[in-house]
């Protein structure tokens, strides 16, 4: 019998029905494991009645929160797989997901106009603020997909515009959360303040909390004063957030403190600047725990033992994982290779099973990240061998933006790269070569043009017209030339 993550939640709900599953985001809001289970079952019945069944893949186009969690688990109860369609993407990016991943239906907010070209029949109301839209078949799913028992398909755009789509089975997610919990030790006494996007972070976080009986604390906004207030009000034991959230907490002027119950302040999504780590520790007397999370692996490393002494390190790899560095330079820096439980099951397009992906490195997954390991086994991430850009923790490849820019008739060639930004970490900038016979369009026009095709965090902050782009001898763009 294949594993279903929803069944693991049901076991917790049966064991502790009155235990709070979610607190907030509004004052006094609390739903217990039993009530959340009822909500999921009711939704699953509605979905079943509407024709959602085992083997289907359903897009989830909905903001993070209690309903997002309930929809995900309800779909699993139906035996369906979930493909998040992040709300912040541009319409064209959302439609691209439908073209690349075979999606049978979408659960959406009432703002579903962008899907209407793909729908079959009228929208079916689910809750007051959501509906189900059945979709036309745009492509067939890979034949081997159903056999993997998929829980999630996370769409990722590749470096050359090729869509990848990471497939995570129920078994894989379960392996990941078990491996992570060898370090995190999450249990029913934990109350986790949650601040991230559920469309990007769900597997080794929300699923872990609900599988291990913890309580999720949702905040009504992510200002420092609010996070501190909610952490204290709910006696949080763990905060799971991006560096920007800790920066806001550090500079909060309300004078609030963190509760003595807090045992871990997990940093994820982007690199933590030393000055934030030091300022946070100085104000709250607590170190920040940096982690290393990647969609293909899960959470293989976390600095849980020496966050203060080895600030800047994402810690040792957790017990279930192995690590080695490939092609180390004279300073010991090399590409991080990992192995262990819960590695991705497959890439969706082009279809590649786990064994094929790992074959190139003898069973190890090449992460594309560059790292250094000190004498005691602490890993420091020092860069990316891939040219990914991270804006406030939202990651994308520059080629995506270049492809959009080069579709414009006035642009002959584009090079997009990151420059450092104070609060966002990085921000994209574009160098453009004008197509012959054209006048350079104004910056405001180019931003408008990009916004039709790209999420706002991917739109370059500046556009500079150049005579030519820097390239290697083999013609490859040099994106770091102006960093």
């Amino acid at each position: 019998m294949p594993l279903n993550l929803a069944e693991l939640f049901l076991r917790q709900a049966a064991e502790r029905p009155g235990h709070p599953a979610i607190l907030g985001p509004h004052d006094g809001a609390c739903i217990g494991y039993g009530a959340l289970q009822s909500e999921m079952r009711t939704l699953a019945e509605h979905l079943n009645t509407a024709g959602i069944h085992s083997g289907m893949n359903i897009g989830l186009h909905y903001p993070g929160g209690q309903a997002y969690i309930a929809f995900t688990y309800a779909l699993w109860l139906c035996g369906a797989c979930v493909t998040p369609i992040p709300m912040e993407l541009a319409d064209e990016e959302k439609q691209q997901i439908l073209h690349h991943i075979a999606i049978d239906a979408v659960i959406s907010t009432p703002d579903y106009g962008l899907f209407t070209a793909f729908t079959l029949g009228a929208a079916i109301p689910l809750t007051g603020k959501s509906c189900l839209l059945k979709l036309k078949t745009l492509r067939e799913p890979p034949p081997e997909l159903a056999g993997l028992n998929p829980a999630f398909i996370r769409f990722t755009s590749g470096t050359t515009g090729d869509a990848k789509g990471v497939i995570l089975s129920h078994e894989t997610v379960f392996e990941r959360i078990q491996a992570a919990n060898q370090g995190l030790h999450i249990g029913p006494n934990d109350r986790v303040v949650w601040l991230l996007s559920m469309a990007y972070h769900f597997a080794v976080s929300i699923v872990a909390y609900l599988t291990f009986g913890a309580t999720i604390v949702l905040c009504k906004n992510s200002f420092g004063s609010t996070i501190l207030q909610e952490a204290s009000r709910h006696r949080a034991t763990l905060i799971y957030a991006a560096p920007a959230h800790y920066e806001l907490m550090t500079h909060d002027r309300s004078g609030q403190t963190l509760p003595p119950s807090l045992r871990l302040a997990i940093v994820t999504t982007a690199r933590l600047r030393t000055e934030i780590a030091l300022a946070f520790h100085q104000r709250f007397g607590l170190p920040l725990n940096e982690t290393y999370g990647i969609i293909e692996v899960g959470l293989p490393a976390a600095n849980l033992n020496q966050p203060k002494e080895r600030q800047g390190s994402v810690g040792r790899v957790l017990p279930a994982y192995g690590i080695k560095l490939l092609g180390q330079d004279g300073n010991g820096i090399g590409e991080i290779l990992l192995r262990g439980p819960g590695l991705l099951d497959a890439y969706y397009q082009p279809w590649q099973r786990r064994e094929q992906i790992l074959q190139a490195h003898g069973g190890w997954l090449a992460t594309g990240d560059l790292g250094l390991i000190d004498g005691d086994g602490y890993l420091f991430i020092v860069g990316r061998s891939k040219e990914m850009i991270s804006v406030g923790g939202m990651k994308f490849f520059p080629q995506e933006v270049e492809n959009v820019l080069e579709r414009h008739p006035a642009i002959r060639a584009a090079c997009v790269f990151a420059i450092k930004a104070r609060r966002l970490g990085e921000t994209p900038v574009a160098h453009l070569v004008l197509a012959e016979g054209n006048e350079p369009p104004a910056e405001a026009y180019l931003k408008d043009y990009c916004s039709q095709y790209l999420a706002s965090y991917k739109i370059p902050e500046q556009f500079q017209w150049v005579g030519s782009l820097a390239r290697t001898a083999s013609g490859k763009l040099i994106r770091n030339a102006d960093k």
Partner: protein
Amino acid sequence: MTATLSQTSKTTMNPTQEIHEHILNECLKGRVPEGFDDDCQLIDEGILDSLAIMKLIAWLEKHFSIEFGDDEIVPEHFNSVNALVGFIKQKRAVSEGN
């Protein structure tokens, strides 16, 4: 030689209108929620999430030639378009006073 198209940060247009339009175009992608006006609760209505706030700050700093202090990123300044305009006026007044 490179020629940048970045606009200068000085503006003589109405800040309320500029911020209103920026939020409509950048954060709402032109989808105007019912009842959206300059007193609309940008945080409580979920119009500004944490990434949108950071992007908005970067734009406001560049566009209005101001700088947010780390301790000035608080809900009361981002509650509405009018609250943002009030904060910017206050920052400019201080800056001009100096």
